[in-house]
């Protein structure tokens, strides 16, 4: 199965104008309006350079940050409104959280090969954990517009799942799990997955989240004889296949670049043991 998005546009470097940037539960939601972007495939990403563009050249933090496109929609007039969900975990994301409208940030995208939609007659089973949920909204939205989709989201606590309301507004079945039991099932999202896999219906599992979660989901899908795609996250400097920093080892030998060959991969190809 190819993970090539049907509607990929060539990447460009441009500026995104900050429309909104606010905390939402344990995440921040950044909305950029990008006049030159036309379309995104579900699961694609952008490289964002934190800090106001056109200010004095900033060298620390030096590198742009890969960010999944959470939601993209045609803007009034031209271009796209691009939403990014992120957690403040370091200097780059702290700087990003200080961006205020109508500052501009440098954007490179759309990047990567995203998720293909489920084939006709196959149910999409979308499994998200923690910040991995940010890669899955567009997939859930587009797949649910034309077929049977179930979404399973898991996180530590209810604060991490406030964004579930976006998914709840879609025509799909949504199930939640939290480790502390503050929302949905108490436990891991993979426990919900086990229940959903107890069927003979053809499924395609889509997983994005912490590596142990994706690895477990991949093993469970394989054991159930169902297909599984995962979206990997790796440190990267460029996002378009030249720094070679994001190499992920493959079971068949050698490496694939998360930025160029992924971030979406068939789970069976991933060598989980040596993933950074």
């Amino acid at each position: 199965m190819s993970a090539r998005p049907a509607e990929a546009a060539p990447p460009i470097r441009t500026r995104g104008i900050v429309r909104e940037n606010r905390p939402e539960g344990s995440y921040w939601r950044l909305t950029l309006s990008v006049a030159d972007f036309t379309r995104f495939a579900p699961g694609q990403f952008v490289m964002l350079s934190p800090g106001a563009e056109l200010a004095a050249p900033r060298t620390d933090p030096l590198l742009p940050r890969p960010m999944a496109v959470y939601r993209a929609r045609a803007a009034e007039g031209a271009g796209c409104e691009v939403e990014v969900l992120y957690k403040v975990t370091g200097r780059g994301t702290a700087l990003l959280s200080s961006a205020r409208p109508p500052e501009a940030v440098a954007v490179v995208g759309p990047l990567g090969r995203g998720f293909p939609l489920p084939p006709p007659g196959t149910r999409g089973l979308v499994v998200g954990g923690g910040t991995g949920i940010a890669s899955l909204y567009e997939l859930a939205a587009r797949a649910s517009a034309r077929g049977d989709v179930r979404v399973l989201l898991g996180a530590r606590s209810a604060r991490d799942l406030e964004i579930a309301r976006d998914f709840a507004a879609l025509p799909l079945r949504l199930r939640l799990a939290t480790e502390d039991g503050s929302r949905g099932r108490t436990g891991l999202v993979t426990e919900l997955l086990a229940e959903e896999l107890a069927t003979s219906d053809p499924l395609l599992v889509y997983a994005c989240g912490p590596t142990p979660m994706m690895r477990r989901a991949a093993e469970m899908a394989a054991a159930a004889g169902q297909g599984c795609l995962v979206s990997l996250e790796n440190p990267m400097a460029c996002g378009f296949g030249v720094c070679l920093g994001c190499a992920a080892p493959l079971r068949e030998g050698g490496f694939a670049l998360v930025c160029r060959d992924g971030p979406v991969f068939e789970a069976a190809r991933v060598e989980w043991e040596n993933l950074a």
Partner: protein
Amino acid sequence: MSARAPLAPDRVDARVNLGGIALRNPVLTASGTFGYGTEFAPFLDLRRLGGIVSKSLTVAPRTGNLPARIAETASGMLNAIGLENVGVEAFVREKLPALHPDVVVVASVFGTEMEHYAQVCARLEGEPRVAGFEINASCPHVKSGGIEFGQRADVLAELVRTVRRAARKPLLVKLSPNVTSIAEMARVCEGEGADGLSLVNTLQALDVDVETRRPLLRNVLGGLSGPAIRPVALRMVFQASHAVKIPICGIGGIETAEDAIKFLLCGATAVQVGTANYRNPAVAGEIADGIRAHAARHGFARVADLVGALEVPGV
């Protein structure tokens, strides 16, 4: 400062000659930061550049190191990619033909043995699209090869001699900064017939995650690049340019046209842009335009006249 009357930018001749490689302007892209050029086609017309230096090519393809391969540091980054490349045959067959004929291509060459360097050069010698070679004598993160060639004067001399015999095209040697005397290494290369020097490669470095008590890179050591190393690189270019007559290509943390001008003033005939390509894939073209504008503003009719034009006050 000696004042000159400003010129219109289109009156400035930006051409330079780097050891027999004619460049339309002094800006190249550094090996390992620019893929094989085609990756940048969506962002930049490569004909705006003086040229590109390919990823270091070996006789056979290499898959590179296990992750983590890169890490961000203060105003810089560490890498230990492991010289992953498609190999010289695939470069000739697939990568070279994909580039516009007007793009000047310098082939970076690497081997774990001296003869392998010579083999790669011999394979490329008949390729008209290759304008010259850059010998990677300095990659600090590969356990076999790399560091030994660039760090010992006698070994470096033998390497340049070996490659020189196989290469009629212009031959640049990319020097390691991890040496006691860059001037000595520069003189060794000049003495063995190199046509030019590229400096510096990355500085050997290390960073650590205190939570996990592990090095940030799987390879433990890596090469430091980016603005953090720029003043060190500039110092070495300055010293090397006083030690040899062959032209120098300055490399190290160049992010803006002003950074590039500093290297020219300190004696570099051309420059290479590396890590900056990651944050802004169009930056090398912007730097080329900026150098021309700077020369015009300062009344230099030829960019080449900026080379070594550093004015050092007497003491």
